């Protein structure tokens, strides 16, 4: 291998997709690949497209290197690694013209496409050079392609080596075996393959000091550093890994070194009703409590969400959104629960909703969520999604949260009550709609109150009085509306265009790229507002008013945020244009660009 036919190199700007089956153990290989590119200083992102199944069904892992720092999915596939007989033909077909294919010899894909560069390798045979155990051979075949790609794409072998060491931590035997497989692949490529494609990786300096983490890990860390004390959960993809990582971090960092005792409790509940029930019980009793779930669990949490809202009990719920309705596509991404979360439960309810776009925001919002839940004494939903939560992202190092002190909100201590003499649980003293609360164990005889999800008055006494009810409902509304200025504010990029883009959550990753495309390809300058939470405030309203056309980009079918915007800002409702992507696959910049251009032309 050596010569590149034409000198037209594509440097640090392409993606690699590995097509395999789940259960084949390719995840480590893919992580090593991604990490090696990362270590070369090149912005990189990885996305795992996997089935709702344990073993044997098609899985695709895509790594995108982007010198421009684009981290969204790219629709075209530049470089395909085909290992799965079930999908081999389609996989080969899905490579963009001019792209490349590395296929297992056994798939017989040789010559299947003339418009792409094709490579073949006998993965199993090469792995057999490393081990005689047939099961391990299957595993090591994955490392073989890492080696081959390393050579074909000019990845620094030392970085691969470091990547393998990092991946398998201290297990030296394992490291050694894997490295041997990598080298075998590398050697095979050097000896037998002739570089025919244009893709190449060159060291940059864009990842120094950065970390790789998934959103669920970041949220877990946020909870650990945010003073979370009670975590309840019920397993559900894609939220499971949030709590599983949280347990690990808690065990490492939240055991009191003095006593060896846990400063947290994690309980696997019997279902989501109980999970939120425990959170509400714990929140009422003074814990910073949270649970994590996905769509079906959210639905089951409806009734308790209403109780938390109405009885004003702090609670935090992470919803790692997947594709609904119903069981839907459990391993695909979506932003389909926004509307549900915003008004979850019967009756008139409104909840504070935080929507992180990045892993860093997962870390930060996980902490803010507790502060907001306690400040506003209500339930707070953090809306992540499978793409953000389960995929690996390069991020700035997380800063120690000196600027996010653990804030318990309006809690009256025994001494406070001593001074005040009396206490009314639901009395709005400050006019901000937020009453004061006490925590069981307070000790002062005036501190206790008996609360409920039924009608009650300011003293928390049972009441069916229409006046007490109406006053309560309006106060609650004032309280939640008032939170609009305390939640993470929208992030705005405004350059005076008349075209605005509105997006939120993981969709953000495609927006920057899309705006660049619009500018470069179509000369269309756009402004951008990224919503980071609900309720919305005047900032959003004025953005809408400043733009003749506002494209609301969402990963759901019904334009859920557009619906909320229209209802909140009816005067601007006719300036909203939905751009909706609902396939379960993360949205890409090309799609948004095309949609906006199409809609602009229909102007």
């Amino acid at each position, binding site marked *: 291998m050596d010569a590149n036919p034409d000198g037209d190199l594509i440097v640090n700007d392409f993606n690699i997709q590995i097509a395999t089956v789940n259960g084949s153990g390719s995840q480590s290989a893919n992580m090593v690949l991604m990490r090696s590119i990362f270590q070369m200083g090149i912005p990189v992102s990885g996305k795992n497209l996997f089935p709702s199944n344990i073993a044997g069904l098609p899985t695709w892992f895509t790594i995108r290197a982007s010198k421009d720092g684009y981290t969204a999915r790219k629709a075209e596939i530049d470089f395909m690694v085909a290992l799965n007989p079930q999908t081999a033909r389609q996989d080969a077909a899905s490579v963009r013209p001019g792209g490349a294919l590395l296929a297992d010899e056994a798939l017989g894909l040789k010559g299947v496409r003339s418009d792409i560069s094709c490579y073949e390798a006998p993965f199993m045979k090469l792995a057999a050079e490393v081990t005689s155990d047939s099961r391990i051979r299957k595993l090591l075949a994955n490392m073989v392609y890492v080696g081959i790609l390393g050579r074909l794409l000019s990845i620094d072998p030392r970085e691969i080596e470091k990547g393998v060491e990092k991946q398998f931590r201290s297990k030296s035997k394992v490291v050694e075996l894997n490295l041997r497989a990598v080298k075998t692949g590398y050697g095979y490529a050097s000896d037998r393959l002739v570089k025919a494609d244009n893709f190449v990786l060159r060291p940059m300096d864009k990842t120094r*000091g*950065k*970390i*790789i983490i998934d959103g669920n890990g970041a949220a877990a*860390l946020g909870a*650990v*550093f*945010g*003073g979370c*004390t*009670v975590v309840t959960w019920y397993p559900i993809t894609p939220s499971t890994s949030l709590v599983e990582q949280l347990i690990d*971090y808690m065990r490492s*960092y*939240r055991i009191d070194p003095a006593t*060896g005792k*846990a*400063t947290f*409790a*994690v*309980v696997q*509940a*019997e*279902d989501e*009703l*109980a*999970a*939120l*029930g*425990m959170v*509400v*019980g*714990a*929140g*009422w*009793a*003074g*814990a910073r409590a949270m649970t994590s779930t996905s769509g079906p669990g959210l639905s089951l949490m409806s*009734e*308790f969400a209403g*109780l938390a809202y109405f*009885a004003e009990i702090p609670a935090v719920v992470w919803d790692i959104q997947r594709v609904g309705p119903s069981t839907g596509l459990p391993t695909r991404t979506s932003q389909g629960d926004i509307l549900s979360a915003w008004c979850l439960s019967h009756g008139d309810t409104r909840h504070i909703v935080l929507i992180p776009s990045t892993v860093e925001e997962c870390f930060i919002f996980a902490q803010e969520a507790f502060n907001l839940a306690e400040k506003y004494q209500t339930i707070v939903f953090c809306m992540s999604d499978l793409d953000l939560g389960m995929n690996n992202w390069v991020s700035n190092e*997380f800063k*120690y*949260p000196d600027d996010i002190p*653990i804030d318990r909100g309006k809690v009256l201590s025994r001494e406070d009550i001593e001074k005040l003499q009396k206490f009314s649980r639901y009395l709005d003293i400050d006019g901000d709609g937020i009453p004061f609360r*006490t*925590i*069981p*164990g307070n*000790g*002062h*005889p005036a501190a*206790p*109150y*008996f*609360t*409920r*999800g*039924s009608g009650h008055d300011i003293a928390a*006494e049972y009441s069916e009085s229409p006046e007490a009810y109406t006053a309560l409902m309006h106060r609650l509304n004032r309280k939640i509306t008032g939170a609009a200025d305390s939640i993470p504010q929208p992030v705005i990029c405004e350059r005076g265009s008349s075209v605005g883009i509105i997006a939120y959550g993981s969709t953000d990753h495609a927006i920057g790229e899309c705006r660049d495309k619009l500018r470069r390809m179509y000369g269309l300058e756009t402004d951008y507002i990224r919503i980071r939470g609900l309720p919305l405030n005047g900032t959003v309203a004025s953005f809408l008013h400043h733009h003749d056309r506002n494209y609301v980009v969402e990963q759901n079918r019904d334009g859920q945020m557009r619906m909320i915007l229209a209802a909140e800002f009816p005067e601007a409702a006719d300036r909203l244009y939905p751009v909706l992507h609902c396939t379960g696959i993360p949205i890409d910049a090309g799609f948004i660009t095309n949609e906006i251009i199409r809609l602009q032309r229909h102007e």
Partner: protein
Amino acid sequence: MSETLNHIGLRLQDYKGKDSTLCAGCGHDAITSQIIRAFFEYGVDPARVIKLSGIGCSSKTPAYFLSRSFGLNALHGRMPSIGTGAVLANRRMIAIGVSGDGDTASIGMGQFVHLMRRNVPMIYIMENNGVYGLTKGQFSATAEEGAKLKTGVTNELPAIDCCIMAIELGCGYVARSFAGDPKQLVALVKGALGHRGTAFIDVLSPCVTFNNHEGSTKSYKYLKESEELLHEIGFIPYYEQISVDYPAGSAKVVELHDGSRLTLNKLEKEYDPTNQPEALRRIREANVTGEVLTGLLYIDTSKPGFVESLNLQDEPLAILPAEKARPSREALREIMEQLK
């Protein structure tokens, strides 16, 4: 009487709550009195108690005792989960949960089972009247097979015996009593106060308004004329509380307000409540003869507590100081290094 102080210097009065809004004669009110007395006699500090309940007439009662304690009246069937959460937040509080038979054995069955399995430290009182009182008298899952409502509807399904369930699920303190037996009930609640895991007490508590336990054929008849009138829609007659006192090892037939009869059978003093198979045998035997076996049916103090198994710190998590609630700067640095 009201002047008597308990060993922490409080009066019986200090354990009372708001006035009850239940029907006159409702068994639940009798239970409330017994809870008040038990907590008073045991000398529990009300400031250390949390009261929890679901939804139903029974679930209203925590408002009627211990007004100096914190209380959370939650959702129908969900007392166990809020109780679990509350105990995790503050393991130092004494938790008492009140539920109904509908609240527990119908909608709440899942949470009931899992609370028992976890052995969450709390007193769980099921005020059992065989009906949904608050929604006006439909059968609950503890209604006896063949029981009849005043409307003439017959229950075709077998009753769920929550004591059997609790024992099978490993609950370490399982008792059954009758709302109108103050002595026994006070003793059982006090026993529960001394128990470290879940203490379950199934208390038969006649719903004077809707439950006609043994079917109208056996019930005491008013004059035909008055009877018809008294079945007037929306009319709830007034009844006095029933109160019984009978020695251990004996049976007692109680005539309920509607004239139906309940046979209570109190376990003898020599009964060994640590013998699980024997407990189950005796309960089943009584069920077959249609008697209600009362007393401490089963006890096992050796079961590991839920909070212990979590290796929880002693101080309540609810008041965890910020410095313990947030790992150090160093810790974050270490984690960041691993992620690089």
